[in-house]
């Protein structure tokens, strides 16, 4: 087939990656290319869209999901190469507010989140479908505050949009990944959710079953290597190992 | 006070058309070869085309006077204009076309809808739309619309073109009756010398 990976224009493997990994993977790709390899072609979109592209037979080589559910789905369908799945990075969940505020609020059991909203809404990624939102719901439930805020949510399309709502003052507080909060100067971290309050936030990586690109597997291995992990850590992602211990 | 006191110059691409008309007769015919500017002059009197200069007064009422800055809007002039191209409203029925101007009647009521439809032989067409009419039917409805509007004066641009002799005679009689009973001022464009002789007290050639 005449897909992008084998028309010679793009030497490198085609990597479908969760949008929230953009900066980290771009830097990793640069590093990799700097070592004399063909630069991987990175396509960022929502995990659901990319999983469907793989199911439809699109000529991708590698998939980095923000969501284990989609990776499970692909694995069950036989769309990913046996044994190639691994956790590439982890993340933490934080409560954010505008950077000009001074509120600190420790997300511990029963903390008074509803009150801190002062009648405003809590920006989150959509809590049924978007991974960041599902983690937020899990954490808030576990801490016993879900019922007090579940009608006071501003569910956004994805975690970046939730970030934007807080940055623009449309919502006084929000729940995002630590990596997102670190990247936006107009917000500050008000508090970090304890790791035990939500399922581990893992970014699984895997090779697409039909991948034929020469160095695809090598790039995956690079990402999991110390050098690759160092790049990811530079962008605030937690190490792959941590997840493995869960 | 003359019925018509008109002295205007109208601009058309590449030419100017001048009309100077002082008349005490209530019906004045305007003649002249095709393309000379008859329709343009009527448009100017109706307020659809602004003259370069001059003055228009009909029955003592000043409609336009460049010098004193008077320029009545078309709807204020109270004319009943039978356009050369009829201009029936395609979205309205014949009846709705006929009664379009009723609510703005300015002069005396010249006729009623029933009488007018009868005189013009269009009573059977009232529910139709203009697109499904013959050429002569269209013409007759255009005449009816102008009469029913209760005008202060009439502008008739070849009203009887494309009508057969019997119809033509019937409508000529209607116009004569209006002329005699209401002394309504009329400007009548026609190429038919007999019509002109019969109707008009005066004829100006452009």
């Amino acid at each position, binding site marked *: 087939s005449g897909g992008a990976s084998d028309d010679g224009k793009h030497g490198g493997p085609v990597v479908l990656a969760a949008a929230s990994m953009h900066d980290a993977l771009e830097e990793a790709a640069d590093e990799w290319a700097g070592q004399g390899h063909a630069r991987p072609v990175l396509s960022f979109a*929502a*995990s*659901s869209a990319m*999983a469907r592209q793989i199911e439809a037979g699109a000529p991708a080589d590698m998939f980095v999901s923000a969501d284990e*559910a*989609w990776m*499970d*789905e692909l694995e069950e369908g036989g769309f990913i190469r046996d044994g190639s799945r691994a956790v590439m990075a982890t993340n933490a969940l934080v409560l954010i507010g505008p950077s000009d505020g001074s509120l600190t609020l420790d997300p511990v059991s029963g903390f008074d989140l509803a009150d801190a909203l002062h009648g405003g*809404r809590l*920006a989150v990624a*959509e809590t*049924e*479908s*978007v991974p960041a939102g599902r983690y937020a719901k899990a954490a808030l439930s576990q801490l016993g505050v879900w019922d007090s805020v579940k009608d006071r*949510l*501003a*569910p*956004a*399309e994805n975690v970046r*949009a939730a970030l*934007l*709502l807080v940055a*623009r*003052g*449309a919502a006084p507080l929000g729940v995002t990944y630590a990596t997102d909060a670190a990247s936006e100067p107009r917000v500050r971290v008000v508090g970090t959710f304890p790791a035990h309050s939500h399922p581990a936030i893992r970014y699984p990586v895997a090779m697409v079953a039909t991948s034929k690109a020469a160095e695809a597997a090598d790039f995956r291995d690079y990402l999991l290597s110390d050098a690759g992990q160092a790049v990811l850590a530079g962008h605030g992602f937690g190490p792959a190992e941590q997840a493995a211990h869960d | 006070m003359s019925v018509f006191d008109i002295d205007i110059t109208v601009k058309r691409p590449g030419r100017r058309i001048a009309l100077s008309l002082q008349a005490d007769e209530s019906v004045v015919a305007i003649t002249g070869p095709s393309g000379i500017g008859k329709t343009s002059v009527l448009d100017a009197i*109706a*307020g*659809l085309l602004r003259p370069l200069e001059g003055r228009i007064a009909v029955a003592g009422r000043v409609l336009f006077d460049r010098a004193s800055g008077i320029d009545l*809007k*078309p*709807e204020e*002039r*109270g*004319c*009943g*204009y039978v*356009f050369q*191209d009829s*201009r029936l*409203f*395609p*979205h309205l*029925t014949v009846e709705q076309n006929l009664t*379009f*101007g009723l*609510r*703005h*009647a*300015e002069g005396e009521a010249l006729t009623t809808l029933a009488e007018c439809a009868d005189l013009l032989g269009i009573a059977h067409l009232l529910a*139709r*739309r203009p*697109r*499904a009419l013959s050429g002569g039917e269209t013409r007759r409805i255009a005449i009816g*619309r102008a009469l029913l*509007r209760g005008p202060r004066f009439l502008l008739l641009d070849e009203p009887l073109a494309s009508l057969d002799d019997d119809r033509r005679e019937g409508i000529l009689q209607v116009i004569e009756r209006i002329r005699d009973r209401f002394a309504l001022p009329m400007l009548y464009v026609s190429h038919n010398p007999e019509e002109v002789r019969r109707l008009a007290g005066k004829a100006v050639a452009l």
Partner: protein
Amino acid sequence: MLSPTEWQIVALSLKVSVVAIACVLPLAFALAWVLARKRFPGMLLLDALVHLPLVLPPVVTGWLLLLSFGPRGPVGRLLNDAFGLAFSFHWTGAALAAAVMALPLMVRAIRLSIEAIDTRLESAARTLGAGPWEAFRRVTLPLAAPGVLAALVLGFARSIGEFGATITFAANIPGETRTLPLGIYTALQVPGGETQVTRLALVSVALSLGALVVSEWLARRGAAGERKGHVL
């Protein structure tokens, strides 16, 4: 057939779209009329502004709406102080987003119809005693009916399908701003959500098919009187 939650989504979508299109129609007509009939400096700029929501990715439009109509935006603050109107996270915000996205389509359709009108008919109405406004109401407006009808269909369809600007500006709040596309999107994010996606998508299609049927019926009723008996 549909679950209560799904019915809620459908009802909300209808409310949002109907309100959006009803409110934006007069504005669309006014813009179309000005663009069709007037020549003025800045006309191109106005034209471009109207097209903006078409050109920009919907998310950017939503973002711009947030900047201007959000609680901290200049217009948003004004409207809130003056009329107590709040848009963000409110169904009115979804309606505003739908209206803004539908506007360019509606303006174009109406403008095309207005440009096709023979202005000599308006002159005829004026000689019959109708002032500019009456001539507009009795001649221009009915003659522009095909464009208005097309605008309603296009606008309604577009607003039933509007996603990006709505979710960015008004968020995805169940019962408040979760319209059909947002419901569909939510379902699309989860593996196995396809059956719900299909169900909601079919409802969307049914809604705008309904609008189509009504519009074609109205169009035919309007044209019926003008039918010609000709072969050609």
